[in-house]
Each structure stands twice: as C-alpha cells, then as structure tokens.
C-alpha cells in the first residue's frame, strides 16, 4: 500500500451551509461538494468511460492483467470453487462497477442551467471514492506498479502518466479524509 505525502484540501459542507435551493432537508446526513475545474471533470469522465469500456471488453493480452486486478480470484488454491465463484459473481461484479461508473459520471456532469455540480450525499461520495480508486488501480497496474519500490518510483517520476497517477491518489486521499471525518 502507499501513502501520499500531502494534506488534501478538504471542503466538507454541512447541510446547514448548503444553499437551500436544490438540497434535501436536514437529517439526510452530510453533504459533499466537488470543487472541480471543468477540465478536471472532463478528465475524470473520460477515465471513467475508458474503465467502463475495459469492464465490458473481451480479455486480450493487453487487458488480461487489468481485468485480473479488477476481478481477482476469490479461491486461490481451488480452481473448481474459483470457477464457480467467477460464474456466479463475475457478472454481478461487472454490473456493480458499471452502475457505479454511470452514477459517478452523472455526478461529474454539471447542471446545464447553473453550470455547477450537485452536492453529494455520503453514499454518492462513497461511490465516487470507489470508482476513483478503481480507475487509479487500473492506471497503476498499467504503469507496472507491482511493489513498494515501483510505487515509490512512481511518486517521483514526472512523466505525464505518473503525474496523472499522483493526481488521482491526491484526489482519492482527499475523498477518504473527507468521508472519514463524517464517520
């Protein structure tokens, strides 16, 4: 596992601080606001779209390691039970991930009237965290981050892909901290 060396800027918005327009009554739990530039939204939406394509793609030499990481074996030493698990659960797992990607893509799509993103509930924010993590996992796997050494190398490599990987880690940390504070 890795730990980023930054303190993310958290803006958590209590219900009481939320503009009354377009929000639910209090008692519905904490709300979260995503303060993204349009280019950040576009980037995340594109990455989510690519992951959705991957989730529903055929296994090829290029996609096999990525799909293996997204759908790891449940039974490491029992091929029979593993085949059964994959048969029963794989489709459900794909569906769950696709539903989450679609939900998060919608969250990142600005209201055409206000140009703003809707504030998120806690479950929304957890879905956001989950999909963001999956995107980062796929990217990290593509970048061959396979052990602590390559993970540390990734932190200092400034090639575009590694910067993107760092950005996703920063955003994920931000999201986790934000959720943790409400727990």
């Amino acid at each position, binding site marked *: *596992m*890795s*730990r*980023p060396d930054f303190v993310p800027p958290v803006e958590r918005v209590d219900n009481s601080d939320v503009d009354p327009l377009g929000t639910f009554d209090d008692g519905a739990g904490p709300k979260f606001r995503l303060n993204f530039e349009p280019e950040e939204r576009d980037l995340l939406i594109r990455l989510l779209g690519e992951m959705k394509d991957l989730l529903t793609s055929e296994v090829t030499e290029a996609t096999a390691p990525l799909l293996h*990481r*997204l*759908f*790891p*074996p*449940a*039974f*490491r*030493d029992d091929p029979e039970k593993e085949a059964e*698990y994959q048969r029963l*659960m794989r489709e*459900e*797992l794909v569906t*769950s*991930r696709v539903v989450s990607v679609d939900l998060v893509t919608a969250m990142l799509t600005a209201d055409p009237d206000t140009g703003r993103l809707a504030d998120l509930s806690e479950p929304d924010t*957890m879905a956001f*965290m*989950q999909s963001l*993590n*999956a995107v*980062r*996992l796929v990217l*990290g*796997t593509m970048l061959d*981050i*396979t*052990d*602590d050494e*390559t*993970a540390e190398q990734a932190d200092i490599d400034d090639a575009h892909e590694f910067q993107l990987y760092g950005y996703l*880690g920063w955003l*994920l*940390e931000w999201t*986790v*901290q934000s*959720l*943790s504070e409400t*727990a």
Partner: protein
Amino acid sequence: MGGCCGQNGDVPTTLEPVRVEEPDVDDELANDKPWVVIVWNDPINLMSYVTYVLKSLFGYSDDKATALMLDVHHKGKAAVAHGNREEAEMHVFRLHEHSLWASMEHDV
C-alpha cells in the same frame, strides 16, 4: 442470504430409497467449516482507503481497521473476517467491489 444447507441435513422424500446417493463429503464439510477472508497487500491501494473500506464494510473501529491495514501492509496479508462459505463469499465480493485484493480459505 437464505438459510439453505443447514445442519439438519436433507429430509428424506421417500421411505424406500433404492439407492442412497452419498453426499459430497467435501462440500458438506465446506459448508460447515469456517472460512477466513484474507486481504493481501498491494502497492497501489492507499493505506487510508484500505482502513476506510474495512471500517465501512465490517463496522470496525478506527483502531481495529488501522491495525488490520497495518498487518496487511507489514505482513503481506491479514484475516479481516470469518464466517461460513456464503458469508465469506459475500465479504470477498464486497471487498472486490472496492478493489481490495481479497480471497478466502478454510480457517485452520
């Protein structure tokens, strides 16, 4: 998650069985023997994320989730939950939904 496969066994449907099928002993035992759910270390998932997922999926305290996360990090793996096969499979499924590297095996 229904209560199939309880320990009462199959209720006979006829009083005159010509031939009794031996139950699959391995499967029968598998249903009763406890399973353990393992999370394995990986270099990508953030420590804070793993802790948060363990807290939110299993309702663990911050201390317990952090201790388990550190076990995963330092020892390479940790047993995060126990249960029968059905329960363990559900835990593994939910951990997989959150992209944790989880598997299950018989408790020893």
